[in-house]
Structures are given as structure tokens and as C-alpha cells.
């Protein structure tokens, strides 16, 4: 048997410990892709939920700073006098910073988006509105004001937007809940993918596991090596997926800013705001990515450890 030609004598330099589970494999690359896609979807869902929740909060805050008194025209009554009387009653209520009655022209202008311009609305019984703006930090005693208005006028009603706020809040909560379920489903699917991948890598490295056992490695050591392997894959995949999700929000923010004022942009901005996630949103994406990577490592360690214990 011929010996291979000797290499030049050299004492190997100290270097970082080489992973005992080989890093490069087709299964490993596939798992990185799966983790990246799952993290991307989970981060999009979580970021979208945060945007909707934030926009909903802004809407509710804006709406809760206002209330409206509606004065309906009634036969035999002077609506201008009733509006003035209702405004007087409203001004007596505590906590209001401004009371702004809309005149007839303003009331008709509100109908233009539905009826168009150039129509003579003079003969229509159009209700008149009084906008009440709350002082900063103040709360409107809606029932008391409604009672006072009812006592003073038969045709005035108060709308403090509570019902609308309630529906808005329910819708936002539902969207956030759906996003939460999506995140959970994605993470569950990811967990299953990691479990399958772990078993596949273990099967592919059965000989390495055998050698490690024969040279005196404890199950804890072997499980830790697999954990390191999968943590590395998890960090690669989750970093890639989380980074792409953050980039997607950044690009969406830039695009909506660029298209601001356009026909479709208003609706999109009304629902999601400006796609500006802010530090909290990007922090959430980073947390999802890091959590995904850590969970990947931890789960593979648990699976390997249980499998090795089962070998007896």
C-alpha cells in the first residue's frame, strides 16, 4: 500500500472549534430557506397587526376628542334659533374647548360627495351639525349633555361617536387577533419543519453520533452540538426573513410617502397609516427573528436528547 505524499510539517494553528455536525448540507440550506420564509411571513403579520392597532388607536384618539350635536329640522321651528340654543347648552357643559355650529352652507357642503355640486338643496330638510371639541385631558359627560339638550330642545341629539368607536375597536382587535393566529400558525409550521429537519440531519449523521458515543461523548454534549448546528441555521434563516420583512416595511413606507395624495394611497394610508413601523415595530420583527432562531436551536436539542435517551 502506498503512502500519500507528506505535506510540509506544520503544527495546526489554534482556530475556532469546527462544528462536529457538518455545517453545509442540502437539507441545511433548505431549512434556512424555510425558516427565512416563515420568519418573513410571521414578521409581516406581526408588523401589519401593529400598524392596524396603531392606526386604530390614532383614529379612536382623534374621534374621542370630538362629539357632534345634530339638530333636525322640524315643522314650525326655526332651525337657526334651535342651533344657537343647542350651542348655548353645549357651551355650558364642562370640558369643552370649542363649540362650532355649522351653518347651512357648511351642512350642504358635507353632502356634496354624495349628491354632487350645483344642486339647489335649499328646499331639503338638511340637519345641522354642531362640532364639539374637547379640552386636552378632559372627558365629556355625554349622558348629562344629552339630557340637557333633550330638555332644552325636542330636535337636538348628541352623538359622542361611542358606537362608531366600539365598532372600530372591534375591527382592529379582530385584525390583530387574526394576525396573532397567523403568527402562531406560521411558528407551529416552522416547529414541525425543524422537527423533521432535525430527524433528517440525525439520520444523515448517524455515523458521527456513533463515533461520538464511542469516544465517550455524553448525550448532553451531542445534543448541544446539534443545538449549535440548528441555532446557526436558525440565525441565518431568521435573520434573512426578518431583514427582508423590515426592508419590505421600509420600502412600503417610502412608496406610500411617494404616492401620498393619490387616489389609492388615501385608502391604504387610512387603514395602515404610513407603514412607518417605528422602533417598536422593528423591535418586534427583531424579537420574532431572534425568538425563531433560539426556538429552532432549543427544539432540535430537545428532539436529539430525547432520541438519544431512547437509544438506551
Amino acid at each position, binding site marked *: *500500500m502506498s*503512502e500519500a505524499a507528506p*505535506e510540509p510539517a*506544520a*503544527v495546526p494553528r*489554534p482556530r475556532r472549534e469546527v462544528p462536529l455536525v457538518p455545517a453545509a448540507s442540502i437539507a441545511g440550506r433548505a431549512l434556512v430557506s424555510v425558516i427565512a420564509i416563515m420568519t418573513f411571513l410571521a414578521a409581516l403579520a406581526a408588523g401589519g397587526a401593529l400598524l392596524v392597532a396603531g392606526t386604530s388607536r390614532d383614529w379612536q384618539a382623534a374621534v374621542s376628542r370630538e362629539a357632534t350635536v345634530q339638530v333636525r329640522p322640524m315643522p314650525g321651528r326655526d332651525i337657526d334659533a334651535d342651533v344657537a340654543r343647542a350651542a348655548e347648552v353645549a357651551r355650558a357643559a364642562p370640558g369643552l374647548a370649542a363649540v362650532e355650529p355649522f351653518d347651512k352652507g357648511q351642512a350642504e357642503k358635507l353632502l356634496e360627495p354624495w349628491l354632487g355640486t350645483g344642486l339647489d338643496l335649499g328646499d331639503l330638510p338638511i340637519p345641522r351639525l354642531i362640532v364639539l371639541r374637547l379640552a386636552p385631558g378632559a372627558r365629556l359627560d355625554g349622558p348629562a349633555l344629552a339630557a340637557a339638550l333633550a330638555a332644552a330642545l325636542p330636535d337636538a341629539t348628541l352623538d359622542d361617536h361611542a358606537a362608531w368607536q366600539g365598532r372600530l375597536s372591534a375591527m382592529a382587535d379582530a385584525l390583530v387577533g387574526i394576525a396573532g393566529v397567523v403568527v402562531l400558525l406560521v411558528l407551529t409550521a416552522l416547529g414541525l419543519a425543524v422537527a423533521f429537519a432535525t430527524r433528517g440531519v440525525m439520520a444523515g449523521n448517524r455515523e*458521527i453520533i456513533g463515533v461520538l458515543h464511542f469516544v*465517550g461523548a*455524553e448525550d448532553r*454534549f451531542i445534543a448541544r452540538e446539534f443545538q449549535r448546528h440548528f441555532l446557526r441555521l436558525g440565525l441565518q434563516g431568521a435573520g434573512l426573513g426578518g431583514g427582508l420583512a423590515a426592508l419590505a416595511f421600509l420600502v412600503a413606507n417610502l412608496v406610500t410617502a411617494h404616492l401620498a395624495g393619490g387616489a389609492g394611497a388615501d385608502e391604504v394610508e387610512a387603514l395602515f397609516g404610513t407603514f412607518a413601523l417605528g422602533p417598536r415595530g422593528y423591535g418586534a420583527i427583531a424579537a420574532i427573528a431572534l425568538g425563531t432562531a433560539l426556538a429552532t436551536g432549543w427544539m432540535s436539542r430537545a428532539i436529539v436528547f430525547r432520541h438519544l435517551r431512547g437509544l438506551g
Partner: protein
Amino acid sequence: MVRFENVGLRYDMGAEILKDLSFSIAPESFQFLTGPSGAGKTTLLRLMLLSLKPTRGLITLFGRDAATLDKDAVTGLRRRIGVVFQDFRLLDHLTTYENVALPLRVQGREEAGYRAEVVELLRWVGLGERMGAHPPVLSGGEKQRAAIARALIMRPELLLADEPTGNVDPPLARRLLRLFMELHRSGTAVVIATHDLALMDQFSHIRRLVLGDRRLTVYE
């Protein structure tokens, strides 16, 4: 050190492939385990290494009944045994140096603490020039010596070698055997499984454990 009493082994419901094995391995002893191919030499080594459980009989290893050992205890005993596999079982993605250092690494020892020791052993087995090479580029003899160095790095009390000269030419086989003899003189009990009669005849005074017809005969 190792004691077998009426040990038998069968797979599933088949006939016994090893029966009524009774022998012992003394500390600092040297013996050949021999027999025709397929006689069960590797199986017997695996029983000694506790990677197989006997169907019947008693195996005592370092004074402890193997049947009562939990997994951690088995791991602890394996650290006192060096093994040279017939197919080497080196990890291809590690260098020769890293393969030899593996038993120390799995014990959590720092590389700086064992570096000089591994380098010295590699030079002793004649691989001082091949420390950075990976197994796929090593010759059969180099792989064999790397596997032997890995088995010796922990200074085992017992060395089990499965056909360690099976893949090398006669001069290298004699050189490897002298290496085992040197190890034996330093206090390690050695069991060498081989069917190379010519090699054994060069050491006719050595104790032989001969497997045949599923039984073991000891020639002192």
C-alpha cells in the same frame, strides 16, 4: 478488568451467534482475539464496549456489572477504553489533529490544554506531517494510525483494536503491532482482533482468544 461468564448472544429469535463465553482480560495484559471471518470477533468487541447487550450471562467491566449500568455510567466506562475500528470511523470534515483530539474535546477540555499532547502523539504515530490533512486525502495506513492515535489520546486502561492491520501492508502491520506492544508496556491492556495468522505467528508467546463454532477457546 473485563470478565465474561457464560455470556450468550442472539439476535431476535434466531440461534445464538455466541454461546457460553467465559474469559477475563487482566490489567496490563496483551492478547489476540482471532478466528475465521464471520466468527464474531467484532461482535465480541462490541459486547466488551457495551454497545451490545448479551442475551444471557454476566459481563463485568472494571469491576461493575454491565447489566446494572445506566447510560451515563456506560459513557464513563467508555472513556477508559480506547477503540480502533476496522473501518477507522474518522470524521471526514475534521482534520487529523481534530479527529485525534475528539475524545478530549467531548469531555469539554480547552484546546490550549491538550494541544501539545495531541501533537506529540501524532508525531509518535508518524503523522506529524499530516496533522492538518482531512481523512479523505489520507492513505489507508495514515487513517489507521490516526484512528489508533485517537484511541490512545485518553491513555486508556484497555485498548480494543478491530483488525488494525487489515488495511496495511506487512511492514506497516509489523510497525503498528510494535506500537501496540509499546503501549502495552506502558500499562494498557490490549486486545487485538485479527485473522492474520502470519502476523500472530511472529508473536507466538502472546495469549490468544480463539473464536470458532460460536464458542471461545483461550490459549495462554
